[in-house]
């Protein structure tokens, strides 16, 4: 049965593992220290290439770890979910993570500006900081969904301000979740669309949608969009203040460093949006509204290591079916479209469009049972994709 939960492991083993994950989530706190530790090694050994280590960690070590440790079959049952869902412990981890992201960014800025490095090493440091900025957006994403909890919403703004992407909560909650897996959503990728083409639609589209949603909200409140109540302006002011301060303290090298680190953080988020719903489409009902978002409208990945590091974001089918569920209770589903690896490897593959298309296009076609009318496809390639793949078995 589609969407039924996958709880076939022995109950005892399952619940022991789920309980131990409580401690494994502290990996999210350690993650932002990786660039700092590698920077310390770079300084001690005088080898600037250590500053690239986080990039290597993301695209080589994590995919290997996902391959070795495999998938996480454990799902919390209803009783355990009741116990876990309101446990503030899991929220407190994210508050510590928020602090660590700023420590990591400022620490890397200090390292880049206070020692002699080649431009190539500085590039490595900036991209490493960018990967951590991207992970920061995952944490911000999780907290940004908890709109009833003022402190989580505030923390989401703070952590997303590391890379100046504070509009994301508004865009994501009110825009993406509502229109996901429809042609109208700039944050859902289409069959045949490369990540580079997608990013040109996604990045400006997401910002425009966030701004217009926030403007509408402020208009209802009788306020100008140019007020301090604007929740896009609030985190942006934090970013601008922090960046200006770092520029003043650490010098002009901050201009390329911070821009590349922020840009590569945004890129990580674009990669996430790209892989999460590629080609999947919700059908329009007779009343003109789209069918409700179901678990089969997201690509799911249940890889153990990357899920522990990314707050189970990859259990994306459950996240879209229940957007307010906290990360510790997200479940895996059987019979939902599955990614062949965790996000780190999928993000890497996505950067090579031919490899991505040959890996993923057949999966999308199989998901839609070769009915191209059920696929979210690139309108520029409509005829080509129809002639290549359209072959529905049922009438």
């Amino acid at each position: 049965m589609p969407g039924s939960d996958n709880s076939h492991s022995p109950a005892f083993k399952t619940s022991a593992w789920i309980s131990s994950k409580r401690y494994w989530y502290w990996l999210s706190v350690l993650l932002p220290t990786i660039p700092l530790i590698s920077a310390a090694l770079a300084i001690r050994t005088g080898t600037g290439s250590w500053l690239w280590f986080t990039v290597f960690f993301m695209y080589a070590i994590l995919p290997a770890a996902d391959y070795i440790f495999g998938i996480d079959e454990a799902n919390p049952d209803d009783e355990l979910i009741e116990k876990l869902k309101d446990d503030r412990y899991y929220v407190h981890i994210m508050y510590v993570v928020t602090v660590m992201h700023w420590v990591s960014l400022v620490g890397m800025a200090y390292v880049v500006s206070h020692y002699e490095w080649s431009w190539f090493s500085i590039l490595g440091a900036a991209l490493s900081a960018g990967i951590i900025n991207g992970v920061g957006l995952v944490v911000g994403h999780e907290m940004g969904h908890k709109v009833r909890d003022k402190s989580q919403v505030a923390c989401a703004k703070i952590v997303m301000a590391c890379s100046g992407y504070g509009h994301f909560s508004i865009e994501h909650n009110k825009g993406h979740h509502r229109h996901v897996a429809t042609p109208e959503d700039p944050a859902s990728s289409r069959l045949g669309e490369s990540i580079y083409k997608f990013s040109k639609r996604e990045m400006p589209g997401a910002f425009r949608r966030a701004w217009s949603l926030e403007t509408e909200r402020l208009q209802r409140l009788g306020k100008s969009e140019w007020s301090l109540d604007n929740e896009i302006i609030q985190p942006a002011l934090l970013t601008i203040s922090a960046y200006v301060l770092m520029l003043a303290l650490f010098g002009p090298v901050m201009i390329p460093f911070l821009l590349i680190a922020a840009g590569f953080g945004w890129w990580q988020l674009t990669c996430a949006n790209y892989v999460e719903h590629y080609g999947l489409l919700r059908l329009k009902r007779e009343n003109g509204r789209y069918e409700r978002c179901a678990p089969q409208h997201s690509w799911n990945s249940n890889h153990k290591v990357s899920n522990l590091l990314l707050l189970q974001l990859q259990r994306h089918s459950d996240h879209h079916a229940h957007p307010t569920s906290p990360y510790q209770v997200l479940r895996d589903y059987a019979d939902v479209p599955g990614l062949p690896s965790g996000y780190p490897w999928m993000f890497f593959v996505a950067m090579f469009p031919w490899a991505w298309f040959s890996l993923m296009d057949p999966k999308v076609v199989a998901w839609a049972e070769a009915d191209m009318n059920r696929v979210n496809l690139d309108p520029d390639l409509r005829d080509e994709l129809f002639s290549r793949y359209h072959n529905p078995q049922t009438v």
Partner: protein
Amino acid sequence: MSTKQAENTVMKQYRCPDCGYIYAESAGAEHEGYRAGTLWKELPEDFPCPDCFITEKPDFVLLE
């Protein structure tokens, strides 16, 4: 009974079938710009759940 109390007693509540959020007319949804006392019929048809944002006004269930 004062007029205000009389109004309160007829104020209705609607529940989001997905996340369980309850829209109480007496409370409105202040952050989203719908002041306390905003009646259900005054909300636009595309009013989304102010908590999960995936359901819309026609999906909500009246609490009796």
